[in-house]
């Protein structure tokens, strides 16, 4: 599974790295660091990634197979 964050939609709510602290982190302004990037989700982080996707108030996160 891969995870992608749409940088234009991310508003820095911080819910994703709250849900998936071992997968995602924040920059100095509170945005997730991987804006407009696609990352691989390790097997142990799949549920956390799904929580991050479902919790984002901006629906900025997409999970890809």
């Amino acid at each position, binding site marked *: 599974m891969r995870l992608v964050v749409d940088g234009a939609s991310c*508003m*820095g*709510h*911080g*819910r994703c*790295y*709250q849900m998936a602290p071992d997968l995602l982190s*924040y920059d*100095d*302004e*509170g945005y997730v660091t991987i804006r407009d990037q696609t990352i691989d989700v390790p097997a142990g982080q799949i549920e956390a990634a799904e*929580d991050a996707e*479902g*919790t*984002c*108030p*901006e*629906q900025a996160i997409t999970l890809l197979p």
Partner: protein
Amino acid sequence: MTVGLLGGGPPPPSSVSQAPSRVQEIEVTDTASQYQTAERDLGGCPVMHRDFAPEQAAGCHWELAEELRETSPVFFNTFAQGYWVFTRHDAVRDIYKTPDLFSSESITPWQPEPIYRFVPTQIDAPDHIKYRRIVNPWFSPREMEAAEPRMRELCRRLVEEVEPAGGCDFVSGFALRFPTEAFLSVVGIDPADADLFVPWVEDFFRGFSGDPAGLEAMAKALDGIRGYWVDALEERRADPAPREGDLASHLLHSTFEDRPLTDAELLDMLTVLVLAGLDTTRATLGYIFRHLATHPEDRRRLIDDPELIPSFVEEALRFYTIVFGDGRKVTRDVEFHGVHLQRGDMVYALVSGANRDPRAYERADEFVIDRKRNNHMGFANGPHRCLGAHLARRELQLAVEEWLRVIPDFRIATDEELSERGGGAMMTLTSLPLVWEVTS
């Protein structure tokens, strides 16, 4: 019609507490309204006359929001100059997420031409993000992490001060003080100055929510806050470098498009931070502690499993959304969710209703302490997402942690119905008398 600085005009008869069956009636009782139906073809959209300002029994604004949401996805409110009210999650989200169509030039739908200017709250793209980037780092998760021990200490001291009395008015004894002291410590101001800010913020929002009797005190409060920052800026102006951890000093050394911020910008920014940062957290604290006082099983769960506190706080932000609605101004003629909006129209995005919309949330009308994937809009959506969200969350979590540690059991001290300030601005409990057994 005379409108005050931010107020909603004269108080027409309230229709808030009516039975749901009356909602659909077209009610035009305010002859002073500027709105004239003859001017406009509303395309069959329901028309109502609603004043959201009056004080109500606690919780009534959420019931009203629900009633409005389930009656119609959109209606035209003939209050003041008239504005559209969008009641459901999809439209509210779209309003937040389409800022080129919905300008923040005015955020109070009954006042399309405000005489005040909050920066960056009322600034649109492309300038908005330039201001936000100046202040974002001050309220970032990293900064809040660093500030947490200080905030926890302030919180702990306040709780330990009230505990021996066996009871207090939670609002004046804690909810007004803690967010104020925490905010001041984050921006580098002596928390002792909370004594000045608490009454200013209280007076400001009594007027902001539309109480005509409060307008004079509100203007005075605004003068007080601005005067405080004028003095603070003056004291810092000659510094060759910004003072560590001091926001006012930092702003004096910040630039906007390679020029220093003007005095007007500095004051507009500092003032709105105070107004936005203090009353909101106080209001949410009130509803959280009313909930805890009346739900001993939830108190017990949080004491037994403190890791639930963050999700409890998020659910409180969804279920007890203190912003009744958010206003925006339409920038061009457009079809939007079934109605024809014209440039210059005001819209009201009823976020308090949207956050309980069963079309968007399972068990939407229940407080689910461990709700998963809770993508609520309690801090708004889009580019104007609450700047202080990370601070507010931290404060709310700390308050629950520290209070339950010292005062694990408490209840509401009165059988009388609690009341809440109107939905013209933020709903907030006017008081919350609590009692508990003193253990030591």
